[in-house]
C-alpha cells in the first residue's frame, strides 16, 4: 500500500510539471498583458511595473523563477489585485466552490445510487422507466438551461427563493445552485449504478448467494453493491474535481464568488499568476481524487492489487 502511494506520487510529479509548463507557455503566448486596460501608463512606469514583477527578464528566466517559487509553495503575487498573493485569492474563493461542489456531489451520489439500485431491481418496470427518464432528461438538459428556467419559476414567478447571490451561504441561496449542479450528476450516477447493478446481479456469485437462501436485501447490500459501484468510483474522481473547482456557468448565473468565476475573469485580464495558481490547484485535485478513487477501487475489489 505505502509502496503504491509512493510510486503514484512519483509518477504525479512529472505530470504536474508538464501541466505547469504547458499552462505557463500557453498563457504567455496569448497577446495582451495584465497591465493594459488601466490608466495609460508612461513607458517608464510600465517598465518599472514590469521590473517589479520580474517580467522584464527573458521568458525562460521567468519560467525558472516561477517554478522555483511553486516548489517552495509560493505562487507569487496577483498581477491585478494590488497587495494580494495568489494564495490569498484562492483562500478567499475556495469556500464557495467547496460547499457547492461538495454538497452537490454528495447529494448526487446518494440520490443517484438509490435511484440506480431501485431501477436495477425493478428492471423494465415503472420505477425503472421513471428513473431512466429522469436520467435521460438530466443528461440532455444542460445546466445553463435548467438554471435560468428554475430561477424563472421559483424565484421570479413564485418568489420562494432568492434569484442570485451568496448571502453568506444562506441555505435559501444554496438550494437552486446545488439543484442545478446535482441534476446532471444524479442522471449519470443513476445510469452507471443501474448498469453495474444489472450486470452484477446476473453473475454467478450472486446466484450462489441466492441459492444459500440469503435474503435479497443482504444480497444487494453486502454482495452486489460493492461490485456494482466500481465503474462509479472511477467516474466520481474527475467529476468531483470538476465540481469542486466550480461550475463556471452556475457561479456566473447565480453570481456566486467561487473559483470558477474567478478563473475566467483572471484569464481574460491576463492575471498570469492567478490563472496558473488555479490550474495547479485543479491539476492537483484531479491527481489526488484519482488516487483516492483508485484506492477505494482496490478496497472494493480484492482482485485489484495496488502495485
Amino acid at each position: 500500500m505505502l509502496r503504491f502511494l509512493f510510486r503514484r506520487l512519483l509518477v504525479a510529479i512529472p505530470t504536474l510539471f508538464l501541466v505547469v509548463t504547458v499552462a505557463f507557455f500557453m498563457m504567455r503566448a496569448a497577446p495582451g498583458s495584465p497591465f493594459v486596460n488601466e490608466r495609460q501608463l508612461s513607458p517608464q512606469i510600465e517598465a518599472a511595473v514590469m521590473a517589479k514583477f520580474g517580467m522584464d527578464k527573458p521568458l525562460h528566466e521567468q519560467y525558472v523563477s516561477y517554478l522555483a517559487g511553486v516548489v517552495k509553495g509560493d505562487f507569487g503575487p496577483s498581477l491585478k489585485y494590488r497587495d494580494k498573493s495568489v494564495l490569498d485569492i484562492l483562500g478567499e474563493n475556495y469556500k464557495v466552490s467547496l460547499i457547492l461542489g461538495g454538497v452537490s456531489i454528495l447529494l448526487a451520489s446518494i440520490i443517484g445510487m438509490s435511484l440506480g439500485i431501485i431501477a436495477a431491481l425493478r428492471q423494465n418496470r415503472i420505477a425503472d422507466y421513471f428513473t431512466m427518464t429522469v436520467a435521460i432528461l438530466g443528461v440532455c438538459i444542460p445546466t445553463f438551461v435548467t438554471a435560468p428556467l428554475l430561477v424563472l419559476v421559483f424565484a421570479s414567478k413564485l418568489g420562494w427563493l432568492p434569484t442570485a447571490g451568496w448571502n453568506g451561504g444562506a441555505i435559501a441561496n444554496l438550494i437552486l445552485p446545488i439543484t442545478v449542479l446535482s441534476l446532471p450528476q444524479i442522471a449519470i450516477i443513476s445510469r452507471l449504478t443501474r448498469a453495474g447493478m444489472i450486470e452484477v446481479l446476473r453473475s454467478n456469485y450472486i446466484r450462489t448467494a441466492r441459492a444459500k437462501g440469503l435474503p435479497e436485501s443482504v444480497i444487494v447490500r453486502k454482495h452486489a453493491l460493492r461490485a456494482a459501484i466500481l465503474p462509479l468510483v472511477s467516474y466520481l474522481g474527475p467529476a468531483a474535481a470538476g465540481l469542486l473547482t466550480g461550475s463556471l456557468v452556475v457561479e456566473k448565473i447565480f453570481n456566486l464568488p467561487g473559483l470558477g468565476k474567478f478563473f475566467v475573469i483572471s484569464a481574460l485580464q491576463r492575471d498570469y499568476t492567478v490563472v496558473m495558481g488555479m490550474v495547479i490547484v485543479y491539476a492537483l485535485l484531479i491527481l489526488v481524487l484519482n488516487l483516492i478513487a483508485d484506492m477505494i477501487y482496490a478496497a472494493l475489489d480484492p482482485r485489484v492489487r495496488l502495485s
Partner: protein
Amino acid sequence: MIPGSPQRAELLQTAVKGRSLWDDARRRLLSNKAAVAGMIVLALMVLIAAVGPFLVPFHYDTVTKPDVWAAPGVGGHLIGADSLGRDLLARLIAGLGVSLLIGVVATSVSLVIGVLWGATAGYVGGRVDEVMMRIVDTLYSLPFIFFVILLMVTFGKNIFLIFLAIGAVEWLTMSRIVRGQTLSLKQKEFVEAARAAGLTGGQIILKHIVPNLLGPVVVYVTLTIPAIIIAESFLSFLGLGVQPPMASLGTLISAGAQDMEIAPWLLIFPSLTMIITLMAFNFIGDGLRDALDPKDR
C-alpha cells in the same frame, strides 16, 4: 431436385448469403423505437436548419424597431421577437444550423486526432504508448475552459477556432477508447496475417485496425456531438463562443436568460430546441450502443 439445376444454384446463393454483423446491428437499431424516433427528429432538425431560412419571411439579423419584444404571433413573428425586434424563429433556425455544424465539424476534428493517436499508441505499444498516453493524461488535468479561453484570446473569437478548440479538447476520451480497442485487436490473427504479408505499421493501422474500431467509435461519435453542442453553448454563455450577430443555440439561450423576465419565450423556445436536439442524439447513441454491443443489454 437435380444437382446443378438452376433452382439449386439459387438456393445455394440464398443459403450462403448470411446476415453480417452490420445487418444484425441495423436490424436491432431499427427495432429500437427511441432510436428511430431520434433519427427522425434529427433528420427533421437538419432539414429545418438547411431549408428553414428560405421559408421564414425574416432574416435572422434584420432589426425591426416596431417589433421589439413582440410576443409570439404578434407582427407575423411566429414565436416572437427579441430585444432588437429580430424574428426569433429566423434566429432559432440559424442558431440550430450553427450549433449542428459546430457539433459535426468539431467531432470530426476530435475523431481524426483521437483515432490516429489512440490507434498509434495502442499498436506501437511500449515506450511510445506510455509517452503518448502520459500526454493525454496531462491534457486531461488541464481545465478545458483554460485551453479554449487561451485559444480564443490568442487568435480572436473566430468560429473556426471554436471548431478547432473544442475538437482539440474532445479527442482525449476518443483516443483512450481507441487505444483500449487497439490493444485487444492487435492480438488478433488477422493483424498477424497482415504483418506476415509484409504490411508496414502505418498500413496495418489504417487498413486493418481503424476499420475494426468502427463500432465503439460510431457510438462515441453520436455521444460526442451533443457534448460539443453543449460545450459551444457553454462558451457562448461566457461570451467566448459564437459572436453576434451570428447565433447559436447557446447565444440564444444566454440572451434569453437575460431577458426572461420581460420575454420568457426568448428563453423557452431555444431551450426546448436544445433539449430536443440533445435527446435525439442521445437516443440514437444509446440505440447504436445496444445494437453494436449486444452483450451490454
